[in-house]
């Protein structure tokens, strides 16, 4: 009797969040799909069927091509940069040096800041003005005599997006380090000792034992960083405002929907974003649930 009533109580207590998720997540996804297949342009809803026209238009839209290119540049540099710097810092900290806690917190700290704050600060640091109005990093390079490093940052034609990846890497590589450090600590010392007994040098231990064992961590990091990078919006707006050379799908979606009243097109961009994130995340969820049930 007691067990049964508790079971009902549990369901009762969970039901509000289940209902909320059904309506506000899945219901709205379905609604967005419907809007993306409509001709809705203008303030008031218009659900006239348009088929895949909005999607076809996007794939012929030169602005959307820039968005895809920018997303690829940003994602590659941001995820790659975080993984390389993250694992490097983690290995350094794993050597058991003094002041490890201090450095661990130091590297992790940027993560406590929001992308907006990071963006505003880096906007000052990456000031692209040259000549008499030089400032930020460029001024630093100038006074250190490192003139060859002076550049136009996010205003470099075609490759400005690479500069936007720098603050993102700065912010998230400490977090990646924490993930890897957890993974390194979970590898039993006995494995390394056994390898040493077999005559492996330190490099071979890392490439043949440590890195393969860290693969699940790399996968997690890839997913977490990857979906942040596909959805990036606030960092770009804080550093450079809304301008076409640094356009990404999320900014296009906002501008076309709320500045231009192209609701159908905006919804289509949203659904494409969702799909691109899903392609990344769904295999990971399947992988983790499978390994969890195996365990």
């Amino acid at each position, binding site marked *: 009797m007691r067990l049964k009533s508790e079971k009902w109580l549990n369901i009762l207590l969970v039901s509000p969040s289940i209902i909320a998720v059904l309506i506000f997540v899945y219901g709205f996804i379905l609604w967005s799909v419907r809007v993306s297949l409509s001709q809705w342009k203008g303030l008031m809803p218009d659900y006239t069927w348009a088929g895949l026209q909005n999607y076809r238009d996007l794939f012929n839209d030169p602005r959307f091509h820039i968005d895809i290119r920018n997303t690829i540049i940003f994602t590659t540099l941001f995820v790659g940069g975080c993984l390389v710097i993250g694992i490097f810092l983690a290995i350094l900290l794993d050597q058991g040096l003094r002041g490890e806690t201090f450095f661990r917190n130091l590297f992790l700290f940027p993560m406590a800041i929001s992308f907006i704050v990071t963006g505003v600060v880096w906007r000052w640091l990456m000031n692209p003005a040259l000549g008499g109005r030089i400032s930020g990093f460029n001024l630093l390079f100038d006074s250190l005599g490192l003139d060859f490093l002076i550049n136009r940052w996010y205003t470099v034609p075609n490759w400005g997006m690479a500069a936007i990846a720098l603050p993102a890497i700065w912010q998230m590589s400490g977090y990646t380090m924490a993930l890897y450090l957890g993974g390194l600590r979970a590898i039993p010392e006995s494995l390394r000792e056994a390898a040493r007994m077999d005559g492996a040098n330190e490099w071979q231990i890392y490439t043949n034992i440590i890195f393969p064992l860290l693969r699940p961590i790399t996968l997690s990091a890839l997913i977490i960083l990857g979906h942040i990078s596909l959805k990036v919006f606030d960092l770009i707006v804080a550093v450079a405002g809304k301008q076409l050379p640094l356009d990404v799908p999320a900014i296009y979606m906002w501008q076309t929907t*709320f500045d231009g009243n192209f609701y159908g097109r905006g919804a289509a961009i949203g659904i494409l974003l969702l799909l691109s994130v899903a392609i990344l995340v769904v295999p990971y969820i399947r992988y983790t649930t499978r390994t969890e049930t195996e365990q």
Partner: protein
Amino acid sequence: MRSYKFILLTIVLMLVLAACGGRSSQKDQVEVFSWWTGGGEAAGLDAMIEVFKAEYPDIEFVNAAVAGGAGTNARAVLAGRLQANNPPDSWQGHAGQELIGTYVAANQLEPLNFLYEEEGWLAVMPPTLIPLMSEGGNIYSVPVNIHRANVLWYNPSVLTANGISVPTTLSEWYAAMDTLKANGMEAPLALGEQWTAMHLFETVLLASLGTNAYNGLWDGSTSWSSPQVTTALQDFQKLLTYTNSDASALSWQDAAQLVINGDAAFNVMGDWAEGFFREIGSVPMQGYGWAPTPGTGGNFQFLSDSFVLPRNAPHRDAAIAWLKVAGSKAGQDAFNPVKGSIPARNDADRSLYGEYLLSAMNDWASNTVVGSLTHGVVANDSWKSEIDTALGLFLNNGNIAAFQAALAAACSASGPCQ
């Protein structure tokens, strides 16, 4: 069992408390929605609210202002409220197609011709202004202030030092900037982020095409594919060669500051820049001078903040009371000196305004009034956002043919061109 009852009781209590949160005030009120949350704009709104309170002490004024970049956030919030059929009693919008193309097209606004007749506003506003705020003979908003878009700001001492007089045509302007470049000024024309490029673009269209052909762009009688437009685009491209390389990293204030500092000689910006110049302590005709953008003399390219009457305003009478204040001499003379703009009415108290604003008032009364693109007068939101994308691509790749094709396509898809 005991905890079970306790939890149920808590849930019931929470529901009861939530239900008590509704509004209970019955006093007549007017909810006015705007994006005036800071600086001279908010101060101007407050001054106008004081006038309203003095005239209508029984109506409570609810200031529903939403902060954020030139109204982008406010407009997204407003769209949500209108789609949920929960409009404010009145809201701020740029007079012209920005209001007409979005809200009149969605059948959200009441025509205000009756108010214009009752209050005699047609007699005190320029006749060339009224058609730009109307659709099908109906006027849809009450302009509170007028800003001018086609203003060339220059640094008088830089011009004197280089022996240059203020240019009045595009070719004089090119010659002046060639001289400045030859004398070692890297970028004589200061430019900021992308929307300031669109602002420059609209003044060049007006200068290169002339008044009639410029107006024709927006009603479909001038073809965007015509050779005249190609020439205008070439003029725009030539002007861009005189601008600073870090334009996309500068706000309009940063760009205007370059003129004051003498890093640049010219800047094209709306006359809100004058308020900024005063704020940083610069003196008119010493630190900065002004003229119509070269080639646009005799034209007043305007933009205006205006208020509307929604079809289903919750407090219609109070909303009309607010609009009467917004269009009155007292209301406009309270708002504009603080905001740094001129009244839409030409019977204002001239003693309240400074040197620049007085010259703008003279031009407002005598010039031909044409509308601004960047600030919502001549093109609806969809059309403007397509032009903005085309312009952004052009700034990126410099391809005039592709730019012109995209402009023609934008006019067909979202403008009057069929």
